[in-house]
């Protein structure tokens, strides 16, 4: 490890890093703007200047940029030299030529990196007396607000959006001091990762639009470590709450999972938490179908009355915590418990769980995915099914560039130079899918095949790897590509609803001999894999089996699951048929809830704690951001109390969350690791709980005075090591207990570097989460059977197309997400469109047996023969079944949709009616 000298202090540094990184690692405050740990250096802002000396005798030195200067043994630097401090101050002074003094009304105020750096360099009075340049802002869609006047031209937005996230529709325009960062014309940003602009921009050019409408300063937000519930990737998030509303979601760094970035579903998809559809009180159904609100105890007593001595079955949920599912399963007994998957889904996810336990390959973290140097994707449009993984795959294709750079001795952080060197040369990626995917632009090969053929393709690749001759040149090429790689990666998943595709991916992975072969599956929901592991012992039931027994059942408990989304309406109707008392725990109104006799208002993820198992097999804990509003209770508490009331022998002994975790951990060897996921409730950091509130949290005693002048006591959290308080330390604690980042002088999210053990490394408290599944030496047992389907003329294979905005049950209830989701659609190739004489926005009737759906047309740029896609998870397509054969017909009655009212207008409209100033709190 080389030693360098900074202001006379000897510092041990990492070979190959730059001085800025070295300084930050040493805990020194060296200001910067354009450098970003995930995006490297370009030397644009010139803020991280320091003085480098030739040798001990050199007293004058010269100014160098920290981010562009590699460390070398014995090198001498000064941060404090007057020419360095003066230069850094001058940089800020010149940035202030045009920066408006609008901090009081700027959403970035209080967490603005520019504010922090301005204070840090000591700049105060601007000497410039000329006019400021001003710009027109653009409408960028419902998620991102644009305020160009604040721009300091650090190029981070363009580098993030275009270079890192692969977005095409945002970039630098014009030049000199008239630079403009925006779109060619106003419009919705196309990237699924646009929200990260909010955190990447060091000032307030790109801000969180939904947050603006219900704004609070960062220091007034109460936060807790949480896990995104938007998909199965398990990104770590830090939601911020005030006045009982979750106001925004920020990224929470986990070096092995999401790093610095979230997808837009994750960042913006929690708006439903504040929706009117949320339930506040338990309710019992009136004969007229309406519910009357009851107290918690009354609901519990009623439920107990329906359950005691009766035949009770239960349905769990892949979107509920392990703990809640575990309690429910124990409450009714495994045989009477169905995990809440549709039966087909149960096979798929169960199959994946089995493969992951038996494959020789690594089930990679996102960080590992980024190391892949050859990728084969079978059947998934990863950007829409596991968005954050897709962002990692985008980085993986850059490994070719890093390899070229290494050959030249160019450090990977020399971002612009590495890109200039490699140009469009990328590591190979082969995508085999039925139609367009959002990663096609970085793929070296795209193959369009029907789901069955994708499976056949996968098996052909496996055969080629095993040395067999195939008559499939593309599969041979894919096999060659994987064979030549150091870290080959196979990605597949359940979105094709096709077991054969999943099996073939496993076959390819197990046919590879590299020790670092990776196999990653995309699964649909935040706890799909956890639930699959829970029922892996085969002792539980299925929806179909429960439906068969429905007539004999007295009561059915449904946990956080709208069964109508699980397919087959008939089956669900049968399950919920009258005669059976249906008790539902959920947080918002849905079809299943409407059919229930008793409803228990469940707390959201932001009001409860629990453990989820991500598609990586990583168990992670989320904590309540605020205490449940009204009479909501976390499902695990409802179930624990219910167990008490029905005097359940085993469960009524449990009192606390930690005990449930312990019991769950004992229930299966697969869950043994659960006890290590996060510290116990008794954990104290230097004698205190970890505060959810910042030191500057304001108005604690007065913030509700618009509603009531009484000062309620702060809620107590008896179940976690976090407190609803500003007292205590938020520093160096275990990573799973980091509610927000802040450090003295670092109010923005850039303060993260004070929490990292080193630049871009794990947090000082480690990497949170425990991986429950590790690869095995045996290899997966895989059926290589592939079905063949004969199509009649004018019939098409129906292929589900998951959509980042629209397919997910909960986030779709967020206004902004719903706006982006648009209408349910049918997607066809250009040729079919031509034949049918339809264009985008026209309507088609899709006939699947007796079912007929009228859907909007979208045109695909590539599609497998005889395949058409449909938007999965939309209400308009609920009746359609993946893999079925359908016919198409032009819908003559179709009305093309007019320009829609945008979400921001809608919200403004509602505000006028609904909000009454301070009473809004």
């Amino acid at each position, binding site marked *: 490890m080389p030693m360098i000298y900074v202001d006379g202090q000897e510092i041990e540094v990492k070979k190959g890093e730059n001085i800025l990184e070295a300084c930050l690692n040493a805990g020194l405050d060296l200001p910067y703007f354009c450098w970003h740990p995930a995006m490297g250096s370009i030397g644009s802002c010139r803020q991280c200047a320091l003085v480098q000396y030739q040798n001990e005798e050199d007293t004058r030195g010269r100014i160098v940029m920290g981010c562009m200067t590699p460390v070398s043994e014995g090198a001498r630097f000064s941060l404090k030299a007057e020419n360095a401090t003066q230069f850094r101050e001058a940089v800020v002074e010149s940035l202030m030529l045009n920066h408006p003094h609008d901090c009081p009304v700027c959403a970035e105020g209080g967490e603005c990196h520019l504010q922090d750096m301005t204070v840090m360099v000591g700049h105060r009075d601007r000497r410039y007396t000329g006019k400021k340049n001003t710009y027109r802002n653009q409408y960028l869609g419902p998620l991102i607000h644009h305020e160009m006047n604040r721009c300091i031209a650090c190029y981070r937005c363009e580098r993030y959006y*275009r270079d890192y996230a692969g977005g*095409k*529709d*945002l*970039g*630098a*325009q*014009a*030049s000199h001091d008239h630079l*403009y960062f925006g*779109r*060619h*014309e106003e*419009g919705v940003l*196309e990237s699924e990762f646009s929200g990260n602009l909010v955190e990447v921009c060091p000032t307030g050019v790109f801000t969180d639009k939904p947050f603006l409408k219900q704004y609070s300063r960062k220091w007034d937000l109460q936060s807790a470590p949480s896990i995104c519930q938007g998909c199965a990737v398990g990104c770590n998030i830090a939601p911020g709450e005030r006045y009982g509303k979750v106001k925004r979601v920020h990224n929470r760094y986990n070096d092995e999972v999401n790093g610095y970035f979230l997808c837009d579903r994750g960042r913006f998809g929690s708006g439903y938490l504040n929706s009117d559809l949320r339930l506040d009180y338990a309710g019992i159904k009136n004969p007229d179908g309406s519910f009357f609100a009851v107290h918690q105890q009354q609901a519990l007593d009623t439920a107990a009355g329906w359950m005691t001595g009766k035949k009770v079955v239960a349905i769990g949920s892949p979107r509920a915590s392990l703990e809640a599912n575990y309690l429910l399963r124990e409450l009714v007994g495994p045989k009477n418990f169905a995990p809440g998957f549709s039966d087909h889904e149960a096979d798929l996810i169960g199959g994946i769980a089995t493969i992951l336990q038996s494959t020789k390959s690594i089930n990679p973290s996102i960080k590992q995915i980024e190391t892949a140097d050859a990728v084969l994707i079978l059947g998934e449009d990863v950007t829409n099914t596991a968005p954050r993984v897709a962002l990692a795959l985008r980085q993986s294709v850059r490994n070719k560039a890093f390899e070229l750079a290494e050959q030249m001795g160019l450090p990977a952080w020399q971002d612009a130079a590495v890109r200039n060197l490699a*140009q*469009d040369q990328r590591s190979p990626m082969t995508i085999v899918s039925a139609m367009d995917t959002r990663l096609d632009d970085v793929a070296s090969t795209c193959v369009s095949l029907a789901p069955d053929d994708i499976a056949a393709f996968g098996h052909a690749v496996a055969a080629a790897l095993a040395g067999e001759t195939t008559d499939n040149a593309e599969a041979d090429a894919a096999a060659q590509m994987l064979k030549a790689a150091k870290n080959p990666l196979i990605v597949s998943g359940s979105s094709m609803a096709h077991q054969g595709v999943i099996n073939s991916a496993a076959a390819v992975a197990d046919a590879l001999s590299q020790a670092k072969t990776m196999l990653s599956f995309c699964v649909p929901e935040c706890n799909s894999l956890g639930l699959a592991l829970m029922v892996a012992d085969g002792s539980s039931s299925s929806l179909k089996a429960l439906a068969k027994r429905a007539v004999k059942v007295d009561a059915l408990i449904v946990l956080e699951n709208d069964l109508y989304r699980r397919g087959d309406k008939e089956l669900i109707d049968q399950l919920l048929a009258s005669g059976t008392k249906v008790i539902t725990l959920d947080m918002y109104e849905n079809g299943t809830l409407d059919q229930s006799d008793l409803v228990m208002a469940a707390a959201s993820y932001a009001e409860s704690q629990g453990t989820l198992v991500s598609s990586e097999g990583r168990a992670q804990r989320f904590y309540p951001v605020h205490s449940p509003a009204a009479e909501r209770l976390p499902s695990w508490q409802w179930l624990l109390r219910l167990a008490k009331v029905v005097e359940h022998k085993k469960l009524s002994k449990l009192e606390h969350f930690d005990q449930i975790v312990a019991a769950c951990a004992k229930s299966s060897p697969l869950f043994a690791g659960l006890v290590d996921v996060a510290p116990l409730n008794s954990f104290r950091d230097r004698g205190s709980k970890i505060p959810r509130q910042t030191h500057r949290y304001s108005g604690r005693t007065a913030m509700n005075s618009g509603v009531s002048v009484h000062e309620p006591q702060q809620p107590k959290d008896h179940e976690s090591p976090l407190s609803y308080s500003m007292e205590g330390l938020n520093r160096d604690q275990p990573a799973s207990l980091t509610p927000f980042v802040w450090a003295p002088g670092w109010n923005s999210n850039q303060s993260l570097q004070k929490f990292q053990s080193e630049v871009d490394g794990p947090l000082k408290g480690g990497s949170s989460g425990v991986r429950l599944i590790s690869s095995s030496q045996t290899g997966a047992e895989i059926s290589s059977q592939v079905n063949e389907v004969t199509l009649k003329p004018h019939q098409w294979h129906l292929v589900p197309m998951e959509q980042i905005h629209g397919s997910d049950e909960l986030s779709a209830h967020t206004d902004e997400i719903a706006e982006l989701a648009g209408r349910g659609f049918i997607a066809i190739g250009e040729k079919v469109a031509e034949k049918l004489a339809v264009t*985008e926005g026209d309507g088609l009737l899709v006939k699947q047996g007796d079912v007929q759906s009228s859907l909007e047309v979208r045109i695909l740029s590539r599609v497998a023969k005889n395949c058409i896609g449909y938007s999965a998870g939309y209400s308009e397509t609920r009746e359609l079944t993946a893999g079925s054969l359908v016919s198409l017909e032009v819908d003559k009655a179709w009305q093309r949709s007019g320009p829609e009212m945008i979400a921001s207008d809608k919200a403004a409209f509602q505000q006028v009616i609904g909000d009454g100033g301070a009473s809004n709190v």
Partner: protein
Amino acid sequence: MSNAKMIQSDISSVLTRQEMAEIDHELEHIPYKSGAAIDALKIVQAGRGWVSDESLQAIAKYLDMSSEELEGVATFYNLIYRRPVGEKVILFCDSVSCWIGGCDSIKQTISDTLGVDYGETTDDNRYTLLPVPCLGACDRAPVMMVGDDLITHLDDNKISEIFSSNKSGVQS
């Protein structure tokens, strides 16, 4: 999605066959399509005087670029016009040698004669007046270009000669 939705037929309704052929010719020695961005902008501008939004979108699509990417390039350069210009562009050198040679007052004469300031086009759409960095004819300062013609040793007489009342053509 605006540019993603532009399909081949849209491109050919905007770009002429000649323009596309010229762009293709440039592409012969350029490894990436986007590498011909500046050439393509110039090719289209040569025939049309300027690059409209519609042209820009069509070129972008033709070169597999996003409109944003091409806009970033188009707005960077001085000689790509993203607003309509007159039949001839007057590139008036206001750099140091011409300034010493008194170009400020000549610029005033032009403005008075034609009734336009920098960035403006005459009412009859014949001229657009733009400043230009040093034209590299400092020994003959002050100078300007009118269309493709370099006009040197400017003085007030010459200006009124060039832009004579009937405004008929340029003599160099």
